[in-house]
């Protein structure tokens, strides 16, 4: 299925958020996630199924004012 990850369309074979992050190479990264505009806590990623067209945000700490 196709999902939108940080604004770019990606093809994935995984069914839930945790597996998608692993598949896309975020396994080792310090990140926080949202699906369709709603925060998904790290502990819930394995229990968060994804559907075609879902919008995923994967954010990390960054410099800010």
């Amino acid at each position: 299925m196709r999902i939108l990850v940080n604004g770019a369309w990606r093809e994935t074979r995984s069914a839930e958020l945790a597996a998608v992050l692993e598949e896309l190479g975020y396994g080792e990264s310090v990140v926080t996630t949202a699906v369709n505009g709603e925060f998904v806590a790290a502990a819930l990623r394995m229990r968060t199924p994804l559907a075609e067209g879902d919008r995923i945000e994967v954010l990390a700490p960054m410099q800010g004012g």
Partner: protein
Amino acid sequence: MLELYKTQLRSRLLLGSARYPSPAVLGAAVRASGAEVVTVALRREASGERAGQGFWNLIRELGVRVLPNTAGCHSVKEAVTTTHMARELFATPWIKLEVIGEDDTLQPDVFGLAEAARILCAEGFEVFPYTTEDLVVAERLLECGCRLLMPWGAPIGSGRGLNNLFGLRALRAHFPEVPLIIDAGIGVPSHAAQALELGYDAVLINTAVAEARDPLQMARAFAQAVEAGRAAYLAGPIEPRDMAAPSTPVIGTAFRG
């Protein structure tokens, strides 16, 4: 001591972490400033990259408190979700709440700000709202549960100092017990000193230090200015007057009469 949400701080200078020439200069500037609170943000991480980890390690090594922001959020929903995400990443209930309403001035959308503040305060977040000097908005933010306010001095990054002195004085006078921090627009240390002289509790600086020719030197200069401004406020400045008043006593002046 400055107290923000029951956290006691010695330094009245809060520093942003963006726009420095390098991570090393950022680290050195934070140390030189004596700041105990540093603002941070969240941004999209490219897959396979670990840019965020390096930055986060640097901040943790500095041993400062982090104040995550919701920079770039234009809606209540974005700001609330970003806040939830920030708490997970940075493990703090603190949030510098920004809801931007206008792109040229980065003026806060104060209606969205109040709405987001109400939601987040009810959820237990300790909200640092980036606002204007508007008294009615300030009252509303306090009523929403904010325990401090961060009015702008001038548009973010403009370096124009305290644009509306009258408004900022009025805000200080109206809310004598509320910690007030000037956030945004400060360009040089004299602006920071002026804010503290007016009775503002602290200033939050980023661009003025990060983009100075020598960020370390500028960080030190701001630290000194903040100390001087606070000391002057406590010492009680004289009132300006229109006519001259001789500082040397006139009684016994020679060659008179």
